[in-house]
């Protein structure tokens, strides 16, 4: 381990030792899941997996919003762009494959795509033009609140939103209920929980008897979160523990929640490769039909059926990877046909995707071999 990268290396070492002891006390292999691209980035950057006991598996779940954007959602963006509207979207979305085309493909054939950093920029573009501007909005609740805020702030009439926003708590239910799941605990992402509050996870824990620990993003925050999580698993006392109180409260940000639920309603829908997730998608409420691109543009997905889907796409196992059933090394395409320059699956596109992160950091150390 590289001491320089830890603010308190002694503490990190001591927590690593505790983790080894706790996992061994369970007498079994333990698998836990985090649902946040930034957590995976930190785990990879600081080499934390080399500190975990080999009997502890820390899996990245569906924590990359770009990766779980379903193919038909990309198709909707492509079809709206084909009608001449300008699509404003986050940079990661450009290369994400749809059923037939990505937005980058659409752009190459003349579609107008603007990369934005914030939903506000999409509104500014709309104010500067008479063209239709459609914000193709992806992201979890942390980003959806920003989209809600611009919708509530009187955007110009040529502005609308194609919402592919997703809501994290329901997908945790899906992962917990998968028959093949090995996940015994969840590490929840600090900043999404800053919006929803830690209490959102209490009914989940009661239903599934699986602990949830909210953790920050420093290496030692993650180590401390894992120690707490494994201790709850070992003791058989599932509950919600907030290890990130400087950012997360029990109730969360009520003002943001009020705006989120005033604009959006949760509906069921597919998460790419994973499953139909009841209440996992955020769509605009009827009061905001005038801002809803799905109701302003005719979208006929069957018009894409004349085109053959990319041949390799059927071999992509992104969904199993995000469900914690397999990892990138189990994929025939990983680092061969599928690389960041020419991604087959969305997990290789986004900086928050498991495959992109593993590609960059060379996967995980083979602890079995070195033990």
């Amino acid at each position, binding site marked *: 381990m590289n001491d320089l*990268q830890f*603010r308190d290396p002694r503490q990190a070492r001591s927590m690593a030792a505790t983790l080894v002891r706790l996992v061994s006390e369970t007498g079994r292999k333990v698998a836990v899941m985090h649902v*946040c*691209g*930034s957590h995976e*980035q*930190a785990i*990879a*950057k600081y080499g934390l997996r080399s500190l975990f006991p080999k009997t502890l598996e820390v899996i990245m779940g569906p*924590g990359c919003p770009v990766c779980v954007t379903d193919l038909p959602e990309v198709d909707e963006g492509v079809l709206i762009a084909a009608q001449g509207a300008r699509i404003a979207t986050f940079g990661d979305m450009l290369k994400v494959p749809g059923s037939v085309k990505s937005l980058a493909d659409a752009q190459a054939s003349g579609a107008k795509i603007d990369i934005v*950093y*914030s*939903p*506000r*920029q999409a509104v500014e573009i709309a104010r500067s033009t008479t063209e239709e501007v459609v914000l193709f909005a992806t*992201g*979890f609740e*942390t*980003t959806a*609140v*920003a989209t809600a*805020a611009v919708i*509530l*702030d009187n955007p110009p009439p040529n502005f609308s939103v194609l919402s592919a926003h997703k809501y994290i708590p329901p997908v945790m239910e899906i992962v917990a209920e998968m028959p093949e799941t090995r996940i015994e605990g969840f590490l929840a*992402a*600090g*900043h*999404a929980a*800053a*919006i929803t509050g830690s209490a959102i996870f209490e009914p989940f824990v009661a239903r599934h008897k699986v602990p949830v620990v909210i953790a*920050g*993003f*420093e290496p030692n925050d993650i180590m401390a979160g894992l120690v707490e999580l494994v201790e709850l698993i070992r003791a058989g006392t599932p509950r919600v523990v907030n290890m990130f109180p*400087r*950012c997360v409260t029990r109730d969360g*940000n*009520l*003002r*943001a929640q009020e*705006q989120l639920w005033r604009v959006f309603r949760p509906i069921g829908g597919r998460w790419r490769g994973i499953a139909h997730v009841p209440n996992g998608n955020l769509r605009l409420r009827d009061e905001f039909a005038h801002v809803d691109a799905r109701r302003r543009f005719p979208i006929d997905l069957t018009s894409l059926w004349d085109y053959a889907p990319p041949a390799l796409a059927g071999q992509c196992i992104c969904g199993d990877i995000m469900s914690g059933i397999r990892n990138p090394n189990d994929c025939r395409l990983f680092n061969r046909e599928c690389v960041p320059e020419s991604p087959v699956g969305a997990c290789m596109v986004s*900086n*928050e995707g498991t495959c*992109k*992160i593993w590609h*960059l*950091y060379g996967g995980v150390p083979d602890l079995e071999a070195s033990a």
Partner: protein
Amino acid sequence: MCLGVPGKVIEVHDSVALVDFWGVRKEVRLDIVDEAVGPGDYILNHVGFAIRRIPPESIEETLALYEMLLADGGDDLMSLDVRSEIEASS
């Protein structure tokens, strides 16, 4: 990215704050944040919106991670995400 970036509020006009992120000054909307925000406060910015006012006693601890990421100058995904969020025009 869900990391967000903390910054120091320089001035506030209605629901917009001018915020300093390590020397880069940007406008950040205050529509979502659930506490009153004034000059000198620190907020956590996510895609141009303050999502949280950082409690004064937690500022140093919160900044530490970012100081560490900016100091190591790494070209890893985490450092890149933080730098691009700081640099992104809003």
